[in-house]
């Protein structure tokens, strides 16, 4: 077992606790950069998909996992980022980098605007209000037809960065690297926010709003900041998603996407940046695994491929139920437990991660 001997206050908030950790992440980054050489175009497309989901997941993780505000409406912000980016490029002729940055900032501003009434809501009420927002998005996109193309949809304009064409189909490796760069920047930014007072304020709001207030944290401003940052990140993911799908209309960003995002970060592990990536990997892998299994079963039975509607979400729901019942800390929590088991061997005890149960008292008082 490694013991970190701290000799300064800065050691508590270092980006990496020691050189070994830094090396591991450097190696991971190297593999991620080399991925286009290692994978064929199809798998690279899947990897890109996972990266985009991970960015969106980090957006929601910041809000739900760290600031403790559940949102069932993040597909709305994906849509906002996607359409803002496409409209800025199409109508205003902005270059990709400018429109991309602006799309995120605009979505963040929308998030803050929505946060202002939402600040008065707690827990389930917030979840339901954001759920309604997500349902409204579909109709708003149709009603705003002059801008969004309504039911017919829009086509993402081609990306050109410093004269180099980045296209999802013609140059999948360039598009992958673009997504990787965004993912790395977002991850670094996220990590840095968590090291700063703002990040600690998020966590304090999550754990107890009243205690946070007593410690001098302004809940309203902190929640608004969490909404803004979360929506900005999600908006960027949405902008990338638009280029990934190439064409999109009102049916792309539905409530199901919102719910899937939330399920994704829960499976990955609430309250950890890793969790967003693990969850995104599950979301990327499960449909492919189902396809493979279905083909195998169909082959064994001698029948053709059968499409079973709802199978994907059904299995996804089952996975989630299993996780909440048996591993509420998600994939990240499970991995941390395994790692600790080997580091402490033979002193690991089953109840080391046991949480105090808190029995409910109602918030409805007479």
């Amino acid at each position: 077992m490694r013991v970190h001997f701290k000799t300064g206050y800065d050691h508590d908030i270092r980006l990496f606790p020691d050189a070994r950790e830094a090396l591991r992440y450097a190696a991971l980054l190297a593999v991620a950069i080399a991925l286009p050489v290692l994978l064929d175009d199809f798998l690279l497309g899947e990897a890109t998909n996972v990266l985009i989901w991970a960015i969106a997941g980090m957006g929601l993780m910041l809000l739900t996992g760290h600031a403790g505000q559940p949102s069932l409406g993040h597909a709305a912000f994906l849509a906002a980022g996607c359409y803002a980016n496409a409209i800025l490029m199409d109508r205003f002729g902005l270059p990709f980098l400018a429109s991309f940055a602006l799309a995120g900032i605009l979505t963040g501003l929308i998030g803050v605007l929505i946060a202002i009434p939402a600040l008065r809501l707690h827990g389930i009420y917030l979840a339901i209000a954001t759920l309604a927002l997500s349902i409204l998005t579909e109709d708003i996109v149709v009603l705003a037809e002059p801008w969004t193309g309504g039911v017919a949809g829009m086509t993402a304009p081609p990306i050109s960065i410093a004269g180099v064409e980045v296209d999802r189909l013609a140059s999948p490796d360039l598009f992958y690297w673009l997504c990787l760069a965004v993912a790395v920047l977002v991850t670094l930014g996220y990590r840095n926010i968590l090291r700063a007072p703002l990040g600690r304020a998020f966590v304090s709001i999550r754990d107890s709003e009243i205690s946070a207030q007593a410690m001098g944290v302004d809940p309203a401003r902190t929640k608004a900041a969490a909404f803004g940052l979360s929506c900005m990140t999600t908006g960027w993911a949405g902008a990338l998603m638009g280029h990934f799908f190439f064409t999109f209309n009102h049916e792309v960003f539905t409530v199901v996407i919102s719910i899937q995002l939330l399920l994704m970060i829960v499976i990955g592990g609430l309250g950890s940046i890793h969790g967003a990536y693990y969850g995104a990997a599950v979301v990327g892998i499960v449909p492919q695994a189902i396809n493979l299994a279905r083909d195998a079963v169909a082959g064994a039975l001698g029948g053709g491929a059968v499409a079973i509607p709802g199978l994907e979400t059904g299995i996804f729901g089952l996975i989630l139920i299993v996780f909440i019942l048996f591993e509420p800390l998600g994939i990240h929590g499970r991995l941390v437990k395994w790692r600790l088991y080997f580091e402490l061997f033979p002193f690991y005890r089953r109840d080391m991660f046991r949480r105090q149960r808190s029995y409910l008292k109602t918030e409805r008082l007479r």
Partner: protein
Amino acid sequence: MENLQLAVSGLANGCIYGLIALGFVLIYKATEQVNFAQGDLMMLGAFIALALGNDSHIGAPFWVACAGAVLAMAALGWSLERVVLRPILGQPQIAAMILTIALGFVLRFVAGAIWGHDPLALETPIAGANFSLGGLILGADEIAAIVVTLLLTGLLFAFFSRTRLGVAMQASSQNQLAAYYMGIPVKRVHGLTWALAGATAAVAGILFASKGSIDPGTGFLGIKAFAAAVIGGFGSLPGALAGGLIVGLIEPFASRYISAGYAQIAPYAVMILVLVVRPHGIFAQVSAKKV
């Protein structure tokens, strides 16, 4: 006259939203959890009634099929609580929320696998019967929806405020630990609440299916019922019905006088308005949280 006709059909729809909302409120009132799968329970209840009653399936008499569906859904509600929700008792509220969302996905998949994804109609003795009242045409299905809903809301309200079990349910939500110390079997109370919510969902499902057709996607109606529950105030039974009626009335009038596109939005717009103005609904029961 046209407005009155719109109002009647709106009221009948609103009663069904109200019934689903009642299911949310029941569970919320007794366990402080939110059941996001209530709409899917309704869908399943309708399908069970259909499988028991329709001639193409088992072909039992209509009332037997109804009773069977209500009992089956009560049993399902009870076992869902026993198997899935009881292990997470004592964990944060969001865990139960996500769990029931996942349950909804699974139920939808199961219904789709058994009964397929094409819309099916429930055969009822009251189908197609109409009464005409001075130019106003009342469908028997609409009257049934309104009458049954009013009865059920009244019964549940009396149950919660008058009976020992109802008061125990309220107590177990207000403070689980204290209720347990006072000798209330909190776990069994939770199981009974879910059984009750399942039975309510079955009734809502039968009424909904007798007004039209059902398919596994019908469960998404639950989201509209959410709006109803929030408008009414999440912890109040009459509030749930009132919210359901408001949503039911807004829809036909918005689509008649504004446009069909806005009719979809209107219930949620009203809900957001209510959340902004009175965050805990019209029939709010909340005062500031004490430490």
